[in-house]
């Protein structure tokens, strides 16, 4: 019974495009969506941290997901958006961060049961920050786990995510 109710529960996801792929984030994590504007570069930060931005008086970091996922870089246009997300840190508090996306597409209602576990890509791809996959009109949507993806403690590890080899996962499994 309970599992049935649980799997029927609907969650809303905001989907956005990144290099012609569709990604989704939980809408409850989204604080606002704004156009791209110039940021202040943080010295010696990893390349995917574009810089910091003034969001009504607080200073928030902006992460370029293309660089984060090692996708080809593209010029920022008037369609480029910054999705401001509220990230929950593992135990203590919340952080506000922005991610750069090519465009925002839609808000989807997705049943829990329709979220499929991300397949294991082995050492080539780290799926730690994926919540799962969802198929919508024959398109694959990758649902991201924002809390894991944008953990500020992991900023240093993020660089290494792509080459985090199996040794790493053995340690934790």
């Amino acid at each position, binding site marked *: 019974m309970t599992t049935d109710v649980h799997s029927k529960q609907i969650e809303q996801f905001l989907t956005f495009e990144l290099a012609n792929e569709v990604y989704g984030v939980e809408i409850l994590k989204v604080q606002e969506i704004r156009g791209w504007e110039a940021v*202040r*570069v943080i*010295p010696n*930060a990893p390349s995917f941290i574009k810089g*910091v931005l*003034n969001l009504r008086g607080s*200073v*928030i970091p902006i992460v370029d997901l293309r660089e984060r996922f090692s996708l080809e870089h593209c010029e920022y246009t008037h369609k480029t958006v910054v999705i401001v997300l509220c990230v929950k840190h593992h135990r203590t508090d919340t952080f506000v961060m922005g991610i750069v996306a090519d465009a925002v597409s839609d808000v989807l209602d997705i049943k829990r049961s329709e979220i499929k576990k991300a397949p294991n890509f082995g050492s080539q791809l780290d799926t730690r920050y994926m919540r799962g996959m969802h198929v919508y009109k024959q398109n694959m949507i990758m649902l991201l786990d924002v809390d894991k993806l944008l953990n500020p*403690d992991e900023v240093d*590890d993020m660089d290494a995510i792509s080459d985090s080899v199996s040794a790493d996962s053995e340690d934790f499994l």
Partner: protein
Amino acid sequence: MSIDMSQFHQVFFEECFEGLEAMESGLLSLDIGDIDSEVINTIFRAAHSIKGGSGTFGFTVVAEYTHIMETLLDEMRDGRRQVTKPAVDVLLGSVDCLREMLTSIQNEEDVNMSSVAKHQAALEIELNGKASGGDHAPAATHAAAPAPVAVHEEPEPEEEEIEEEQGWKIAFCPYLSLLKTGNDPVRLFRELSALGTLTSNVNIQDVPPFAELDPEECNISWELKLVTDATEAAVREIFSWVEEDCALELAPLAKPKKAKKPKAAPAPVVEAAPVPVVEAAPAPAAAKKAAPTESDPSKNAPKASSSIRVDTDKIDTLINMVGEVVITQSMLGLIGENFTMDKVGQLKRGLAQLERHTRDLQQSVMNIRMLPISFVFSRFPRLVHDISTKLNKKITLKLVGENTEVDKAVVELINDPLVHLIRNSLDHGIEMPAERLAAGKPEMGTIELKAYHRGGHIVIEIVDDGRGMDKSKLLAKAIEKGLVDESTIMSDKQILELIFMPGFSTAEQLTDISGRGVGMDVVRRNIQSLGGNIDIISELGKGSTIAIHLPLTLAILDGQSVAVGDETYIVPLVSIIESINITEKMLNKVAGKGETFKLRNEYLPIIRMREIFNVKSGAATKSNEGVIVVVEGQGALCGFLVDELLGQQQVVIKSLEANYRRVEGVSGATILGDGSVALILDVPGLVRLSVR
């Protein structure tokens, strides 16, 4: 239909602590032999209101205890009893005890009944000349030196473990930040083991997986067993420098006979002691043992005073200012509604007015955060009284400028460094009375604690007329420890600054008050982290002056904006010595790499901002084109090479860590007039970064 009393608790506690402070300062100002009855009255009134309040709120322990104090004070007030020094000392001890009790109640912890019983016994002896019945028998019989009666406790059924071990059970749970404040548990343990036999039990359940481990965080807690005859105070003394950064529970080594005594006071202590260790471990295994209400480790932290008492005048000013701003805003709104070009003059006037009001408003809001420094200073008469008694020295403390106002954050953070510096002055600075007389000085030593404003800074000075520092001895010690090279020629100032080196102590023998060589470096680090600096002047035989310069507020700083490529950085104005245009002939290279420049016969290293921060935008500055900003960081001068100077402005400090993390060489961020973000440079951090 009862009223929820807990909503008034906070007010009650605040009033109690105020009352305790009044009692303490009253007691300290009592001049034995010439008693001012008004002072006794003040102390009595404070005790009376604490008693009344605690009775109302059902804190019977406090009420009963205060009642005894009150009886004693009442007799003094009526002149039925002589005010003697021991009596005053007992009362001071009771003030401490009450404060401890109230803090425990405020944090919803069990009151440490053994120390209460100890103080109560001392009070009763003072009152009756003997202790009352055995139901308040002190737990730590050996520690309650002034209570000879306690030994004649009603005989207990003998049990085998009795009196085989004297000592303390210490639950020591450092907060995560312990190591960041420069403290090292190992040093503490070394100190502890000097007191007796130390066995420790380490709790590592909190340690995260290796990948998440932050070496700067302390995730370990300890359960220590110290077999010693040292007093609780002596044990606590060792932890005094870290007490802000840890949860510390001290209990006498439990005796079965005491634990079993049903009505006996120490029972809760025995239970309370091991609990924090369990609590601090959120690991599921331990969770089932932990008290359900307190499994959150953060609850163990002392409740920080999140409230602030503000003068009503300040609030009134603020309300007035807000009124003005609202009026100006509606005026501007009116102009904007149907704007024509001929209203430009009006608009400009309105904007100018708005600007003025905003600035005033900002000032009044900042004012609310300002507290008089007496919040910190008021604790020191007691400290000086206690320590000078302990050391058999005669010392008076003079406070000057107690009403100087500083930011609340500064008030909170300056306390520890000041305590340390005053202890140093008491212990090493002021000589023994005989020595002073021999040196032709008055027997009574003086320590002066001054606070005053200078420029945008507050200066706190600790002046003593003690023996001063022996520079040749300092230098010899530094050479012996290998901190400086024998051939180095050092100025007097540089020699004095040696005391800020980690691990430097010239005290021939360690005392429990100071001289462990931990500290001065921590003091300096603390003060630098507040954006201030510390200076020292000392003359052998005449005394020393330590001056601390601190920014008035931590929220706003004066900055110089500089451009590097397309980036704008803010250099705190306090650390800038001067800025110069560089010319080719001033530049030198050391071994083809390290760049230096000559500034009035001194060679200073150059830090190229463009390189250290990896700025890619804009054309690279040739070394003969930029501007060198000469700054002082880590006690040394160096030059930052930037493209150009932009302007000076006050900036509001925003935290980068709130949403990101610490960035090396950057102390924070701010928002410029055009809404863009600029980073504020951390000068000492940059100097460190460049050395690497």
